[in-house]
């Protein structure tokens, strides 16, 4: 449904490289995630695929059409929700929806079934101006507006940025239901915990893709074993842990410190480390092997990237 081949985009006359030789493809009906921090190049990729920007080099197609030559066909087939709030704050919910339906040459009635699930949640406030809605409601309305013309491919650029965890969770529920309707969805996000909700993801940093696979596949490919460590004085633990082994890499992860054992040899870590920490005066020590999350994988890739 979407393919990109070695696309590159630079800004300011080539001095700033936003997207560097990126290739990936998205199958029909897939929920594909572009995961990476701000400034990684996610929005630039989306803008090229939605024909808003021209790539410096490389090529890409959306729904079988070339993004440079066939841009008009693409524009009538895709739905796009930019990162910024992109509705008219002085129009009501209903007016916004009707406006976008007409601009896309359709009516609200024709495709209501597509948005019904989402729209019923905001319909009671139909007369309220979009500017006066809560973050979660704005997001739902923006999604309705992007969906109303029954796009074959939906591009959602950081739809959950700055949104609280509860609204984020609701939003992903909606995306799952949309995928069941056969719409191909590309979504970008800086939140690593959302990656596991996608069919496949591309981890992206500094304009290049670090890895593309299913979330499970990426976790399985983690090159070493990972442990979670906890003790009664977490702040001190951060300083003490690295002194245990020179090659060890450790970092905070929620209430634990995660420990990457790459280059440490195959000794029995949990017991030895517990003894070491006890000798350092810690109590309530817990050391357990864990399965890596996407965030662990991302951190691991960044570190490997740097060294």
């Amino acid at each position, binding site marked *: 449904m979407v393919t990109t081949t070695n696309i590159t985009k630079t800004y300011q006359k080539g001095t700033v490289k936003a997207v560097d030789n990126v290739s990936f493809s998205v199958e029909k009906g897939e929920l594909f995630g572009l995961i*990476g*921090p*701000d*400034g*990684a190049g996610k929005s630039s990729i989306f803008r090229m695929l939605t024909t808003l920007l021209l790539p410096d080099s490389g090529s890409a197609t959306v729904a079988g059409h070339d993004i440079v030559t066939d841009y008009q066909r693409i524009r009538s087939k895709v739905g796009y929700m930019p990162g910024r709030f992109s509705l008219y704050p002085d129009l009501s919910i209903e007016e916004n929806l009707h406006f976008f339906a007409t601009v896309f040459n359709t009516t609200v009635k024709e495709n209501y079934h597509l948005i019904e699930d989402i729209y019923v949640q905001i319909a009671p406030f139909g007369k309220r101006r979009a500017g006066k*809605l*809560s*973050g*979660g*409601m704005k997001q739902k309305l923006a999604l309705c507006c992007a969906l109303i013309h029954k796009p074959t491919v939906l591009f959602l650029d950081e739809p959950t*940025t*700055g*949104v*609280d*965890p*509860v*609204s984020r*969770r609701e939003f992903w529920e909606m995306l799952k239901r949309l995928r069941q309707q056969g719409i191909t969805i590309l979504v970008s996000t*800086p*939140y*690593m*915990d959302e990656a596991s909700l996608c069919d496949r993801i591309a981890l992206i*940093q500094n304009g290049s893709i670090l890895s593309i696979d299913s979330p499970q596949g990426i976790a399985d490919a983690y090159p070493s074993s990972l442990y979670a460590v906890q003790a009664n004085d*977490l*702040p001190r633990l*951060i300083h003490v842990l690295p002194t245990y082994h020179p090659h060890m890499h450790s*970092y*905070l*992860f*929620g*209430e634990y410190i995660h420990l990457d054992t790459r280059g440490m040899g195959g000794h029995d870590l949990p017991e030895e480390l517990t003894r070491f920490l006890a000798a350092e005066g810690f109590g309530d020590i817990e050391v357990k092997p864990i399965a890596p999350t996407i*965030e662990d994988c*991302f*951190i691991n890739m*960044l*570190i490997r990237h740097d060294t």
Partner: protein
Amino acid sequence: MTHREPVISAEKLTKRFGDFIATNEITFEVYKGEIFGFLGANGAGKTTAMRMLCGLSIPSSGRATIAGFDIYRQTEQIKRHIGYMSQKFSLYEDLTVLENIRFFGGIYGLDNHQLKSKSEVLIERLGLQAERKKLVGELPLGWKQKLAFSVSILHEPRIVFLDEPTGGVDPVTRRQFWAMIYEAAESGITVFVTTHYMDEAEYCNRISIMVDGRINALGTPGELKRQFNEPSMDGVFYQLARGAKRGD
């Protein structure tokens, strides 16, 4: 915490906008050197509460002192003893690293001698020697945020308020940022932080969760997880905020 000297103490702090009660009788204390996580759904009233605590907005009722100063009458003193950094505005993009440090240091009344020595130390600690004359706009987001945080505590405030400081930052930089927060807390600066990352909630000594203008939960991450019988802070937050009636 061994030292229990309150740096922020709020009692029934309330802010009304007409009929709308943005912040409804919130009561809590934050102690010296503590990292206090201030969580809540969008529109729960966090921003309003933070504005009052920074002396930017006068409460409708209730009582609060910040670093010992009254938030009704001594807002000027409060502003001199706090630092503030947010994701949205932190530094001037069109000024260089050094110019930003000098500017913000100057605002907080550091003299030339202090400014000079402090900016040297700061630049060296952040490893920005090569970038000191670069415009802040040209730095990667993660560096910008770290620089902004350092600048916000340059004048050694009693409390620093951080409004979603790590939004959109990559996971490695996010952790480096938290290492800086820990360091600041160890040096005795109280850290008051909001975030949408629930793993970061775990890094706080204590957290409060606001729902519809009220503080519905307050305690250490461990206490809250036990209280709500959830394995993670994410679950605790979800349980509390799911019932929220209003948004921003």
